[in-house]
C-alpha cells in the first residue's frame, strides 16, 4: 500500500519466469542471489508499481505479513530494501532497514499465572483490555528488561493502547511503543530476576466487528536484543464472542406463560419472541429465529 498520497498500483505476478531465464523481478534463487547471496528467496518480497516513483517524495510501504511470528525459527536480523528498475538495474539500496523480530526461538516457556483474555470479549464492543499475570522464569542479563507482545487474528493494537503494570510493587515502565497494529513493546526499568511476578495490562485493543479468534504472544527479551529469554507464542487466546441479546418468549398476548395462560403441545398457536438489541441492528443484518420445537 502506498500511503501518504494514496496512490493505487496494480499487482503483477512476478513468478512466471523460469529459472533459466530469470526475470530480474522474479523471486527465485538466481534473481535474489544477484542482489545478495545471503538472502533466501522465500524471504523476499517484490512490489511492482505502475507509475514512476518521484525523487524527493516520501513514500510509505507497508508490508503486512500473514504471520508476523517466525514459524521456522528465524527471519532476519536485518531488513534490506532494493529499488530496481523493470530492466533489472539497481537504483538504490539499503542493507540495514532494521530488524525483523526474532532471530531465535527457545524452549523457555514463560509462566503465565493468569490471563483475562480467556474471558471472551464481545464483538462490536470496540476495544478490550488484556491483563496477564506473569512470573519470570529466566533472569534478564541486562539492567533493563523488554517485553514484546504480538496479537494475531483480526485484533489490533491501537495508538491508544497503553501498557501498564499492576501489583503491589510493579515494575516501572520506562517506555512503551506500539510498533505496529500487531506488535507492541514495553521496556521496564528493572532487571527481571527469576521468580518476579506482576501483572501487565494492555488497553484499547481493537476488537473486530465480528466473531473472531486470535492469539497473543509474549516475549521476554534483554534490552537491545532480539533474542527472547522466554516466550509464550500464539498460546494466549484472544477472541470475541457474540453480543448477548436478552430474549424472552411470551404468548401472543404478551404474557409470560403461567398456569392459566400457557403454551400448548401439538396445536396451532402464536408466540411472541422479544429481542433486546445489545448493539445497533444494521440494515444489512438478518434476523434468524430457530427453535428445536417448532
Amino acid at each position, binding site marked *: 500500500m502506498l500511503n501518504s498520497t494514496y496512490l493505487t498500483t496494480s499487482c503483477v505476478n512476478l513468478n512466471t519466469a523460469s529459472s533459466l531465464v530469470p526475470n530480474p523481478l522474479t523471486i527465485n534463487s538466481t534473481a535474489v542471489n544477484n542482489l545478495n547471496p545471503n538472502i533466501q528467496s522465500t524471504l523476499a518480497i517484490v512490489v511492482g508499481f505502475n507509475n514512476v516513483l518521484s525523487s524527493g517524495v516520501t513514500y510509505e510501504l507497508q508490508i503486512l505479513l500473514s504471520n508476523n511470528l517466525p514459524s521456522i525459527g528465524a527471519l532476519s536480523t536485518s531488513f534490506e530494501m532494493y529499488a530496481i528498475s523493470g530492466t533489472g538495474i539497481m537504483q538504490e539500496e539499503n542493507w540495514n532497514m532494521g530488524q525483523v523480530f526474532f532471530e531465535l526461538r527457545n524452549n523457555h516457556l514463560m509462566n503465565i499465572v493468569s490471563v483475562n483474555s480467556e474471558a471472551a470479549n464481545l*464483538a462490536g464492543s470496540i476495544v478490550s483490555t488484556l491483563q496477564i499475570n506473569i512470573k519470570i522464569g529466566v533472569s534478564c542479563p541486562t539492567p533493563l528488561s523488554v517485553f514484546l507482545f504480538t496479537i494475531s487474528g483480526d485484533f489490533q493494537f491501537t495508538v491508544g493502547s497503553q501498557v501498564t503494570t499492576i501489583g503491589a510493587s510493579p515494575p516501572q515502565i520506562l517506555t512503551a511503543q506500539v510498533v505496529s497494529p500487531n506488535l507492541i513493546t514495553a521496556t521496564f526499568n528493572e532487571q527481571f530476576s527469576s521468580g518476579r511476578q506482576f501483572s501487565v495490562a494492555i488497553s484499547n485493543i481493537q476488537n473486530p466487528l*465480528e466473531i473472531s479468534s486470535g492469539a497473543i504472544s509474549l516475549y521476554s527479551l534483554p534490552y537491545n536484543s532480539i533474542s527472547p529469554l522466554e516466550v509464550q507464542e500464539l498460546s494466549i487466546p484472544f477472541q470475541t464472542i457474540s453480543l448477548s441479546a436478552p430474549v424472552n418468549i411470551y404468548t401472543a398476548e404478551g404474557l409470560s406463560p403461567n398456569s392459566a395462560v400457557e403454551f*400448548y403441545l401439538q*396445536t396451532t*398457536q402464536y408466540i411472541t*419472541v422479544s429481542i433486546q*438489541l445489545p448493539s445497533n441492528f*444494521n440494515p*444489512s443484518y438478518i434476523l434468524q429465529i430457530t427453535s428445536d420445537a*417448532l
Partner: protein
Amino acid sequence: MNFNSLIYTVVNLQTIQISGFTSIIPSGSVITVTMRVWINTNPIFNIYVSIDNIAHITALAPIIYGTASATVTATPSTFISGLTGNGNEMNKLTAMLDGTTSTIYFSVTPSSQTIAGSFLLIYTSANLVKASSFNSATSCLINNVTQPCSITTSTYTKIAIYSSSSSNLFPQPPPLPPPATTTVQINQVVFNYASSHSYYIYHFYFQLTASLASQASVQKYLVSPMVVQQRNQLISFQNYFSNNINNTGNNFMNLIRLVSPNISEWQNTIQTYQKRIISVFTYQDWSNGLANVSSYSSYPCLSNLAGTTFTFIQGSNSLNLTTDFPLNWDRINIVLPGT
C-alpha cells in the same frame, strides 16, 4: 421502520429469517416477532436468535446471539367445538366496532365425566372485555338457559362459568346419558381490536374442571380464532367493465372501474396500523391478463383518491381453486390512503 420491505424466509420448519431492514435499529431497542407455531417438544423448547449477515449466521458466528427457553405443559383435549361469533363462521369472531357488542358461541363435550360443581374457565386477551350491558345473570346461556357467569379483566380476561355445588352444567360425554354436548353462548362482550398477523391475537385457553372436589381432572384446550372486524355491506359499490361510468360513449373493455358513490358507507373508523384495502380477485381466464406483471409489483391503476397504491399479487395456479378459497387467486390490492 418500513415493515413493507421486510422479507420473511422460511429456511426450514424450524428456522425463519427476516431481512430487508431499511434503517439502523438503535441499540437497546426491542424487536418483537410474533409467530404462528406448532410445538412438538415436551416439556421444554428453546428459541435461538442470531443477528448478523448471512455469512456469519451460516458460520454460526453471529455478532448478536440470544436464546430463551420455555416450558410446554398443556396437552390439548378436544372438548371444545364449533367456536363461532356473530358472523357464524367457524373459528372466526367478529369485533363489532360500531358500538354494538359481540357474541361467542361454542360447544363443550367433555372427554371424561363431570359431576356437580364442574366449571369452565376461559382465559383470553385483555382486549376482550365485557360490555357495559353485560349482565352476569343473563348474558351467558348454557343450553339456551341463562346461567351465572363472570368476566374479569386484568393482565388477561377470565370468563368463568360455574355449576352450582349441586348441579353439573357440563355432563358426560357420549355414550353416557345426554346431554352429551353443552352449548355455550356468551353475549355482551367487546373486542377492542380486530386481529392482524402481529397484533391483537386472541388465544382462548379453555380449562374444564370436572368438579369442585377434583382439581386434578382438568381438561385443557386452546383455540386461536381470528377476530375480524365488523364487515358492512358496501351496497353502492359497483364495478364497470368500461371506461365510462354511464356506459355510453367510447368503451374500453380492458378496463375495470370501481365506483363507490355513497361515501356514507365508509364512515366506520378503522384502527391504527390498519388500512382499507380493496382486493380485486381474478379467477380462471382473467389470470392471463395479470400474468405480465410481477408479483408484488405495482399494477397500472388510477384513482381520484391521492395516495392510493395498487399492487399485484400472483396467486396459485392450482386447478383446485374454488370460490370458497379465494386467497390463492391472482389479485390486485388497492390500498386506500388515510384511515
